[in-house]
């Protein structure tokens, strides 16, 4: 992968993470489950895990850019 492209993807990923962790989306997921507690913590952990997974994939992939 060429360096500027990796750079661009990294910036995009950071922006996505910032969006996922910030109020508008956070507020949307802040609703009680049928069981009682809010979905918020679960959402946060899932989003967090997703971001980490994407970052790992982005950083560790060695395939050449098509």
């Amino acid at each position, binding site marked *: 992968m060429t360096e500027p492209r*990796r*750079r661009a993807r*990294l*910036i995009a*990923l*950071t922006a996505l*993470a*910032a969006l996922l*962790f*910030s*109020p508008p989306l*956070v*507020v949307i997921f*802040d609703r*009680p*489950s049928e*069981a*009682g*507690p*809010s979905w*918020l*913590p679960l959402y*946060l*952990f899932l989003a*967090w*895990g997703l*971001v*980490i997974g994407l*970052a*790992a994939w982005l*950083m*560790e992939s060695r395939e050449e850019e098509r």
Partner: protein
Amino acid sequence: MRSEALVLTFAFGYLALLFVIAAWGDRRAEQGRSLIGSPTVYALSIAVYCTAWTFYGSVGRAAEFGPSFLLIYLGPTLAMLMGPLLIRKMVRIARSQRITSIADFISARYGKSSSLGALVAVIALIGITPYIALQLKAITLSHAVLVNYPEAADFRLADESFWNDKSFWVALVLAVFIILFGTRHLDASERHEGMVAAIAFESLIKLLAFVSVGVFVLFGLFQGPADLFGQVAADPALGDALGLGAVPGGATGWFGTLVLAFLAFLALPRQFQVLVVENVDERHLKRASWLFPLYLLAINLFVIPIAMAGLLLGGSNDPDSFVLTLPLAAGLDGIPLLVFIGGLSAATSMVIVETIALSTMVSNQLVMPLLLRSRRLHLSSQGELAGWLLGIRRVAIVLILLLGYLYHALIGDSYSLVTIGLVSFAAAAQFAPAMLIGLYWRGANRTGASLGLIAGFLVWAWTLLLPGFAQSGWLDDAFLHQGPWGLAWLKPYALLGLEGWDIYAHSLLWSLTANVGLLVGISLFTRQSPLEQTQAALFTEAMHPGLEHTPLWRGQTTRGELRSLLGRYLGASATARVLDNPGDARLDDSDPAPSELIARAEQALSGALGNASARVLINSVVRGEALDLESILSILDTTSQTLEYNRQLEQKSRELSRIGEELRAANERLRELDRLKDEFVAMVSHELRTPLTSIRAFAEILRDSDSLPDEKRVHFLDVVVKESQRLSRLIEEILDLARLESGRLTLHPQRLDLVALTRHSVDAVHRLQEDRGVALEVEIDLDEAPVVGDPDRLEQVIINLLDNAGKFADHDAPRVRLHLARHKAHFRLSVEDNGPGIAPDERERVFEKFHQIQRQGESAETVRGRPRGSGLGLPISRGIVAHLGGRLWVEDAPILKGACLVMELPSAPG
């Protein structure tokens, strides 16, 4: 089984293990087989971010404020995602400039300013020491819980002697550890491999401990997550505990804490230490950018289950201690001990790294600049200062730990864990604008950064630090509710009336507004010094491939001077490493040092003393100015070129006006000369015509009247002859004058006796004067008067003077007096008469051509009978005398009271 002895054995055994690991790490480093050369170890060392505050406090915060504890880790996740871009740049700069701490980094960015470095160091000390205290408090508290359970762990330090407080002894052991493994090298920019290895190991231990207790709670106390959350749902009191409603400040508080954690992660001194200074290879950032967030996720995974379990089962206990009390309540012995060790590892790792970072700042940014400023150090500098430096750093380590311990012992009881942590974060966040904006905006300058930092720090102190003191009962807390002096808009928690915000978001908003506002605003309106411009260019363009090997210095010094400077501060072996290359071993110490060598020397000093002090020292031996190419160009573009043009234009216009002036003057002179020439021609024509007319008239009479008596004929012929003589004399004089004025008059100067010459001249005119009835007196005081001159010409002058005097002497009894005397190195010949004299304003005009004085009361008629002058005699005489190096002028006659003409000639040499 939880006996005091056992706990202590485990605790200090664990610390001993740290020593072993660190020693092993350093040994491996010396052998060149580094333990820490892996991205995984790097990521684990970054996990020093997770302190005792994370270990115990996260659960407490989750129990109290719901998911807001996660923000403390989501912020760093964002920062680490940016790591390969942002932190890599910082690492590269730190490597090339040998940065030792965040204070050094900011000081280097803003022109290696020692005042800015000192400011950052002071803010860090004030902001971070409580955080160290917090770790020590966590150790004391967890130990008390572990030993006293099930009795209340209400441990009040004030009631105990400090030697009963385990954290005092832990701090002491840590001081030894840090001194052993944190100050091995003088060069603080070099990595502390053993220490990093120990930190990475501690990170594993705390993760292991926390996960074990989490698994135990979830699967030992409950039957998995479903069971736990089923019970939580059933408890109405916990219904809202995990929603946004539990977060202080709601959505704004949420966002504020996220930003706070993001900034603090980058700007905390210990994070800067592990992220930047201890980085082995900037490629490690790639792995760490996702591995470290993964670590954070793992260590936080069980926070909510533990918090919920704690609220369900042991609601009366302090939520900060749930991690310990839950397994203790279940009657276990092993897991509580593991938790205690985990908490200990979290606390010690933070204390170790933070203390190293702070002590480096204190020694390099606070103490060294002061020492360098004092003269005594310079004078007594023949000894090695290397030992001194390490000594300063070691004393700083002990003092910082002592300060942390005192803080903990004296006011630590009144703070909850979480409060101190976030207050410290907000203090560290004040470094972020100067650092991050300085990384990308070249225009940010020192004045802006300093004022921004000061303003941000003051706002932070007002909105977080002082209220904290007030709530601890240290200050009267009236100003919290009414504002100081009744000024409501100054209320610390509602500045300018901004109410209803989370206190941290509120403080962050105002402090960062002031900080960034001043940094940007002042930078836009002030100028940078050349060094600042250079450093700004080096920082902002750090990733530019061409910039790395730019030689900075253009200054001059010798190898010997560099060697003695380095030897003084770094010791002989380090100096030899820096200065000696195998290739140039034959070079002499008196040779000029090349610029790369000076740059290497400055870097070596920077690593040991910090950038600002290194700069001061290098400046003391190097003459010249350092500028990189880009800043030279930009400076040239903006200022020099314009100035140069201006200067040239000014010079040109000055020259032009001077030339114009000269031309005008020359023109004036030419006009004057032209006028004089016209006058001269008119005069000459007139003078020539008079004798010609009379010659012609008498010649015609002679031709036409044959019957003229002989007597008359002779008389007329006589007149014709006289007039012809006069005519030829006149023409001779005009020619003389022309030659004089054109400089073609040929004189034949020779050594002669003026006395003899004067006598000879007097003899020549004596008869003529007698005929005219002039009484001539001659008074010569000398026997001889040797001068250099043309005898014929001088005689001509003297005769002319005597002749003139005779003409202008008194009409009835004319007297002329000649006087020759010595006057200093000159001879003066004066000729005076007893005529009417010459008025002072006429005295210079008698030397003008054709100037003839009209005698008062005498018409042209009455002058008849005396020979008329041509008006050229005096001008010619003056010209001749001037040519011979003398002077001729008119003055008052001392004896005969008429006119007196004085000729002065220098006496002949020898």
